[in-house]
């Protein structure tokens, strides 16, 4: 029975887990080396991880990154294969509740001492910190933060609509969309049509209508909240958004539409800050668009939290352990977070990084401000579409309902709400 052997091997590994002092000692003696797996291979993601690798090498380490191009699923296949083979990478990309799930199948590194040494805990949002220390100990480190519901406004489309006010509530958003439409903007909404893109439309709508309902229904899966009127209202808003989109988008990425968005042929886009990195990498100017927090009916910003992270897998090799310590230090380093976020368009995980400097955009500053405000007003919630709120199985079951609703205009908001509640029951 090959599998039981693996498990036994894994358990043995965790029992023999090396204590941290040894871990730290090892660093001086050997040249740090890091094996890493991520799906970040192209565009701004590829550029950012490459820059991180360079920093790692500057500090005297050997950087062995193995990018797995394609969907996240393939990256996970690779990770799973390495874990089953008893040869996990020293660290790998993983995020949200999956960190807790995966930490049960292979021993991870206890990072508490490194995190404490860096004084990192006090500068990370508490909800976020929780995801990275599932058993009470830090085993993973968040690298960068996005809000999935940032509102991108095309300057040229705004001119066509003769509008200059950034919409605050969903009603404002709907007004502006109508104005754009009558001002000659062909499609007021510029989103793409992939599964996560459809999920983002829904989560932006619901969290903007009621962050309390979002927390109860989507994050805590409370039956009553799932059947509440806010869910129906959110689906109704999603229908409006979908109707303002180019029906031809099919399942294309949002990035297919960026040029038409900048040209003012399309008006608004509800997307994560990564769109800014893509826009910048593609050579568009910051004057071409504005970024603001997504619509929120109570006027206070709602932040749909999406954080990329690295999980650290236990290894016996001293050079890999030294590499893990170095990597952990780098990931927590404000200078590194600044560098990383400035390439990808995200904001740093650390809440103490000053974003007034030159390399930051207004959009990033607004995002950071929104994070601070939303934490204060308890309106920072975890993104469903980007696998932060639920494990992948539950997420996929919910996105099934949402994407079907977006693509099928005959489904009524009430029906969609019922189906969503059923899907949650079925996937529990």
């Amino acid at each position, binding site marked *: 029975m090959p599998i039981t052997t693996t498990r036994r091997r894994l358990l043995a590994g965790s029992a023999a887990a090396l204590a941290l002092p040894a871990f730290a000692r090892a660093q001086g003696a050997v040249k740090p080396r890091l094996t890493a797996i991520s799906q970040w*291979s*192209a565009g701004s*993601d*590829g550029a950012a*991880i490459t820059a991180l690798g360079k920093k790692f090498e500057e500090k005297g380490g050997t950087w062995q990154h193995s*990018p797995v*191009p*394609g969907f996240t699923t393939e990256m996970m296949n690779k990770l799973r*294969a390495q874990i089953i083979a008893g040869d996990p990478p020293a660290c790998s990309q993983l995020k949200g509740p999956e960190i807790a799930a995966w930490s049960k199948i292979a021993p991870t590194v206890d990072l508490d001492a490194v995190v404490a040494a860096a004084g990192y805990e006090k500068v990370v949002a508490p909800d976020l910190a929780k995801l990275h220390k599932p058993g009470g100990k830090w085993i993973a480190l968040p690298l960068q933060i996005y809000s999935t519901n940032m509102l991108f406004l095309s300057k040229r489309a705004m001119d066509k609509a003769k509008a200059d006010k950034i919409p605050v509530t969903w009603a404002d958003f709907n007004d502006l969309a109508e104005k754009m439409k009558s001002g000659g903007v062909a499609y007021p909404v510029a989103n793409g049509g992939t599964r996560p893109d459809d999920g983002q439309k829904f989560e932006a709508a619901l969290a903007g209508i009621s962050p309390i309902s979002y927390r109860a229904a989507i994050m805590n899966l409370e039956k009553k909240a799932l059947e509440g009127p806010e869910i129906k209202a959110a689906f109704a808003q999603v229908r409006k958004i979908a109707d303002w989109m180019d029906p031809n988008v099919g399942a294309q990425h949002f990035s297919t539409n960026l040029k038409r968005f900048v040209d003012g042929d399309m008006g608004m886009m509800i997307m994560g800050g990564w769109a800014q990195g893509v826009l910048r*990498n593609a050579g568009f100017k910051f004057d071409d668009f504005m970024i603001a927090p997504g619509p929120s009916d109570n006027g206070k910003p709602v932040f749909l939290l999406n954080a990329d992270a690295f999980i650290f897998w236990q290894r016996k090799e001293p050079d890999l352990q030294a590499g893990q310590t170095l990597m952990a230090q780098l990931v927590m380093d404000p200078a590194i977070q600044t560098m990383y976020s400035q390439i990808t368009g995200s904001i740093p995980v650390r809440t103490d990084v000053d974003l007034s400097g030159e390399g930051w955009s207004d959009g990033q500053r607004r995002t950071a401000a929104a994070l601070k405000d939303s934490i204060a007003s308890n309106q920072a919630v975890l993104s469903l579409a980007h696998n932060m709120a639920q494990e992948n199985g539950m997420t996929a079951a919910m996105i099934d309902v949402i994407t079907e609703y977006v693509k099928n205009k005959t489904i009524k908001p009430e029906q969609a709400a019922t189906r969503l509640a059923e899907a949650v029951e079925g996937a529990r």
Partner: protein
Amino acid sequence: MRDRTFAPSRILIYLIVSLIAAAWLAPLAVVVLNSLRSNEEIAQGSMIGWPQHLAWSNYAAAWSGFCVAETCAGIRPYMLNSALVTIPATIFSTLLGAVAGYAVSLWRFRGDSWIYGIVTLGIFLPQQMRLLPWTIVLRDTGLMNTLTGLVLIHTIQGLSFTTLFCRNYYVAIPQELIRAARIDGAGFFRIFWRIILPLSPPILVVTVIWQFTHIWNEFLYGVTFTTGQQQPVTAALIALSAAVADIPQHGVQSAAVMIAALPTLLIYLIGGKYFVRGLTAGAVK
């Protein structure tokens, strides 16, 4: 009716054939044209269009320029990886399949039809289902993240197909030929080498074409069982097409598709004639 006259009916035949051929060529034409258009030009118009300025730089970028994370070497190193897996796996699976097909068809032995039946069922076993079992096999053999491991997988999986086709081909060889050779004292290998192999080129062409294209185009195992520096060409293609963090690179992507498809296209172009001939001789029995 089967002669070369230019009756109206023949003109009609040519017309229909050319129309279908044009439709069949259209996707290739689109890729070739896009491989010569800049990304900006494609973004301005549609995916179908004539190049305004020939953007040969797409090919340069695709061949040795574009980056997959920190490696900016284009598609070139991945082509080599794919070749290192595809060529040995094609040769091994073809040769072993030929021997197995020869044994099953001409050296009837106890249990032959059973084992042949099971082996050929392998054609139908979905690939996704085999991913985790192969992971365990590679772990236990210590071949995870080696090109040898991939060669092993493709050789064993390929046997289902190569055995099936070779067996169907060799079945048509008269038993008397073997019997006579045995009376002359020839053994299993000698008969294979002297009699069977010289008769085999048509079917070997079929299996080589089939194996080569399937292994070359494989993605799932290629990314799961290798590390960064060993990934196959399909991984590099996906890196160009599935990038969320970039605007579409349709021009470079098309050029990369053309380069990556060149070996398999050439094999079909050169071997196409023999493909039908080999099928005529064997596969349809």
